[in-house]
Every structure is written in structure tokens, then in C-alpha cells.
């Protein structure tokens, strides 16, 4: 069939639609699937550290309990709540983008950044305490703490944690929370970029894929913390 010289396209092309995709729906699905595959890779990345944690906790169970009791449960719980609140603001920013509410979108994105900084600030305070107490693994590491449940015994019978094993706990603590904090810092940067682009009016109900995919990333980082909090902060707390 010869091509008609006058093409009347009833579907006016969306400027955000890239030429390799047939439709906007296909482009959106491809971007979403790519993000999910990236998150599956992130599961394996953090999974390696969780596996190392599991092996050493199994081997040095009591010493890990001792190390865990040096952490501040209140600050850990507050940070968990801060991250859960930030996940809500992310959900609301995606919703604002879907409904085309530009001001609400910018507001929720900025609130997410504020909550991200609040988390990082509390984390920095916790890290500072670890440096003061020489609980940071390395040449200056020093550890003389009781094993869980020993404080009620007569002083002569009390058993102390093996410092080498406690150092393993703190190595994993810093590796896991440090990698998580790095993801938070990257996330705050991404949300700053999104807020700037939203202010420029880049996102519409037809095109808000970056907001949605950044949201998926933020929720994933939240889920990592949901597991890190009980595993690192809440070992043997009842003793």
C-alpha cells in the first residue's frame, strides 16, 4: 500500500516518548522492569552482607548480643519511624505526580529530603558515639563489655565478650549501616534532582517515570533498614 502523502496522526506524539518504543505504555513498562531488575541486583548486593552477618552471628552468638547492647535502641527505633514516614511522603509525591499537582509534588519531595537528612543526622550521632567509645574496628578498637545476662551475677563470676568477636559484630554493623547510609545519601541526591525538575514542570500525569522509579528505590532502601534494625539493634535485649 503506497504511503499517503498526508499523514493525519490522531495520536499526537508525546515529546517524552522515545523513538525505540511503540507506545507510552510500552516505554513505561520497560523503565519499570529495568528498575525492578536493578532492585533484584540490590537484593543480592545487600544479601551478601546479610549472609556474612548470619554466619558470624551463628558462630559468635553471645558476643554479637554484647555488641548489639552497645547500640541505642531508642535512636534506632526513631530512625525506623523516620524512614517509614519518608516512605509515606514518597507515596504521596508519586500520587501528586500522577494527579499533576506540581506544588504538592515539590512539597512531598522536599519533605522526603528533610526526613532523609534527619535519618542521616541521627546515624551520624550514633557513629560519633562509636568513635568516642573506641568501638570502631581497626587499630584503635578497644572492647571490655559483659556478655548478655551477666550484669546480675557476682562480679567474680561475670563473663566478658571476646573483643575479636565483638569487633566482627562492629565490622558488620559499620559495613551494613554504612552501605545503607550511602544509599540514603544517593537517594537524597536523586530526590533533590527530582524536586528541581518538578519545579521546572518536567513531570506530568503522562510522564512521571523518574518520580515512580526513584520512589521504588527509596522504598527498597526502607526495606533494607526494616531488616537491619531488628538484626543489629535488638539481639538479646531481654537479658
Amino acid at each position: 500500500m503506497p504511503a499517503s502523502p498526508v499523514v493525519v496522526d490522531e495520536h499526537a506524539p508525546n515529546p517524552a516518548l522515545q523513538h525505540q518504543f511503540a507506545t507510552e505504555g510500552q516505554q513505561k513498562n520497560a523503565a519499570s522492569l529495568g528498575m525492578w531488575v536493578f532492585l533484584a541486583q540490590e537484593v543480592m548486593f545487600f544479601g551478601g552482607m546479610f549472609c556474612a552477618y548470619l554466619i558470624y552471628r551463628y558462630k559468635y552468638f553471645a558476643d554479637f548480643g554484647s555488641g548489639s547492647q552497645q547500640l541505642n535502641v531508642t535512636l534506632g527505633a526513631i530512625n525506623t519511624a523516620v524512614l517509614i514516614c519518608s516512605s509515606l511522603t514518597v507515596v504521596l509525591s508519586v500520587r501528586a505526580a500522577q494527579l499533576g499537582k506540581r506544588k504538592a509534588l515539590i512539597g512531598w519531595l522536599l519533605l522526603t529530603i528533610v526526613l532523609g537528612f534527619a535519618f542521616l543526622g541521627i546515624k551520624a550521632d550514633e557513629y560519633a558515639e562509636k568513635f568516642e567509645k573506641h568501638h570502631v574496628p581497626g587499630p584503635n578498637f578497644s572492647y571490655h563489655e559483659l556478655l548478655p545476662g551477666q550484669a546480675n551475677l557476682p562480679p567474680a563470676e561475670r563473663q566478658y565478650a571476646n573483643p575479636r568477636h565483638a569487633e566482627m559484630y562492629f565490622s558488620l554493623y559499620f559495613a551494613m549501616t554504612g552501605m545503607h547510609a550511602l544509599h540514603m545519601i544517593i537517594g537524597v541526591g536523586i530526590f533533590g534532582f527530582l524536586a528541581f525538575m518538578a519545579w521546572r514542570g518536567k513531570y506530568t500525569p503522562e510522564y512521571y517515570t523518574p518520580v515512580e522509579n526513584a520512589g521504588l528505590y527509596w522504598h527498597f532502601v526502607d526495606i533494607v533498614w526494616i531488616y537491619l534494625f531488628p538484626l543489629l539493634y535488638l539481639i538479646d535485649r531481654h537479658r
Partner: protein
Amino acid sequence: MAEHNSASAPIDEHVSEHVSTIGSSVAIWITLLVCTGLTVGAAFIDLGPFNIVVALAIATVKATLVVLFFMHVKYTHEKLTGLVVVSAIFWLFLLLALSMLDYATRFWR
């Protein structure tokens, strides 16, 4: 080649995305906060070997709520998303379970 191939028309069927309501999002948010309180409270009760089980069970409930509702997996029509999520969990299971099988059974070391 026609630009709009009729054979591939169904591709466009789900451009309209799920928009979460404020009410349901707030309900999930409150549930997550309550679960955080529960996990802290449970840690200070002596449940013997079940302390870790309870902590991980609550964490898994929270993670599931986030994935299904905040990450919209419950509402997606795209089956590939579900496949990627299940694959990720399965690979993680293989990594943790097979490693621990090895370490937990080397009594001669």
C-alpha cells in the same frame, strides 16, 4: 512498515496506572509504625529462641506491606514485575539457606 502495527495494539492496555488513595496509604503507614513498636516491645520479652523468629516475622510483614502497597506490586498488571520480585527473594533464599547448610553442618571444624 506501518507505524502502528495492529498486532501489537494490546501493548497499550495499561497506561492508566493505579493511583493510591490517601486513606489506604495512611493506613499502611500507621500499620508499619505499630509493627515497629511491636518489634521493639517483643525484643524485651524473653521468648527463648523465638525472639529472632518474631523479630524477622514482623520485619517480613512490614517488608511485604511496603512491596505490595507502597511499591504498587499488588496493583500492577505487569506479570514480569512479579517474576522479578519472586526471583530476587528466591535467589536470596538460595544464598542464605545453602551457605548456612554448609556452616551449620561442619561439626568437625
